[in-house]
């Protein structure tokens, strides 16, 4: 075998549907709206799903989507306008740029790639708000990124579910 098996080539996926991308982003937004107070370690679902699609489908989900999602998050969380768009933009840009590299790795290493992206997103938010005179939220705030990276496995499975096709074993077919 000359070609190295990668995660992306292990199974042949159906093309992604636009409505499912929007639906998953809306579901993540809804999860973010659930008021859990300042619970530590709850991931930013919108950032996570956005990272996933910007890595998987950089042609479909990019900075425009990130900007709009960020604006909605700003209003929903009552933060300063522009804080979430700025952070999500950089996430979508980095995710799209690294997409060809990240997809080459198995899932565990993909999660390791996504972790610094999520951390950078939170860091941008902290920097923006502290420049605006807000209080440092404590180191527990960054735990959300770690739990988000751990969720990369189930997230990949769930979000790719509509694209899987039944496995047909045929000895005579090349792929």
């Amino acid at each position, binding site marked *: 075998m000359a070609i190295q098996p990668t995660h992306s080539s292990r199974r042949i996926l159906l093309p992604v549907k636009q409505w499912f991308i929007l639906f998953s982003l809306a579901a993540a937004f809804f999860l973010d709206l659930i008021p859990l*107070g300042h619970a530590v370690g709850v991931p930013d679902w919108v950032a996570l799903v956005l990272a996933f699609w910007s890595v998987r489908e950089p042609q479909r989900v990019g900075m425009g989507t990130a900007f709009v999602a960020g604006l909605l998050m700003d209003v929903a969380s009552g933060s300063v306008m522009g804080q979430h768009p700025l952070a999500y933009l950089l996430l979508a840009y980095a995710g799209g740029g690294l997409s060809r590299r990240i997809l080459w790795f198995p899932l565990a290493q993909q999660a390791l790639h996504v972790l610094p992206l999520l951390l950078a997103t939170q860091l941008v938010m902290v920097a923006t*708000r502290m420049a605006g005179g*807000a209080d440092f939220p404590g180191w527990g705030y960054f735990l959300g990124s770690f739990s988000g990276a751990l969720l990369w496995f189930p997230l990949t499975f769930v979000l790719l579910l509509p694209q899987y096709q039944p496995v047909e074993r045929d000895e005579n077919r090349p792929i």
Partner: protein
Amino acid sequence: MSVVGHPPPPFFKRGPAPLARLAFFVILSLALLVFDLKYRTLEWVRQGVAVALYPLQRAAYTPVDLYEQVGAYFSRLGAVQQENAELKRKELESANWLLRQQHLELENQRLRELLDMRARQPVSGTLAEILYTARDPFSRRVIVDKGGQHGIAGGQAVVDESGVLGQVTRVFPLQSEVTLVTDKNQAVPVKILRSGLRTVLFGASGGQLELRFLAANADVQPGDLLVTSGLDGVYQPGLPVARVARVDRDAAYSFARILCEPVAGVEKHGQVLILGAREPLPPQVEETEARDKPLKGRRARKKE
């Protein structure tokens, strides 16, 4: 038909370069940040989007509400009985004060009339319930279930049964946002009940409050009660806000470091009272003109 002259297949159409797009959006969001932080001109956008998001927000609140209701349903009978006994005891304790309150208020009014002072304003209030803590981890805010439709306006003071909780900072049609006194950017003019010293109380990290810029030898002791001074025209005078918890007097600094604990249940959820807006304070005396005059005189003299 020849292939030449055809537009390129859509596969190659990718719009502007990613870096150019990034630069465009980053500039846009930086502009948003500046406009919101510095000029506060984006409230109408926020209002519009918030109204559209309201049903979704209420739906997202449902699981939390359900969880709380189930918890309350299964709370033991004993706990409820204990709470009932506690409330009865409290009522009896406060009855002494309440019964005399009416008498004292009448007496106060008569004395004020005798002294020809302005009567104290009556206080009206709207009962509201704290729905949830705002998600933003950088500030301390809660969302209450009364908004512009119920006559709430920005700047009104919010109290609970034991003291000042905060101030309404943003009003949506059906709910409003209350910034707690423990928020870093929230300042409350207070006076120390024991000594009458007037100062300003700021939020500090960790759910505490801080008295800044008080001289190292200021007359403050742990246990002192801080009440609103009413100088700001927002809070009614005399509402308890905080109790001094620790006083650090370090000779190296000219100011004492004074940490206080809020009196009200700032981190708890429950019923709160949104006090009606106070009457505007009398216009401030124009000091600036008096200060400017000698300056002008000096300049004029120099020119001569």
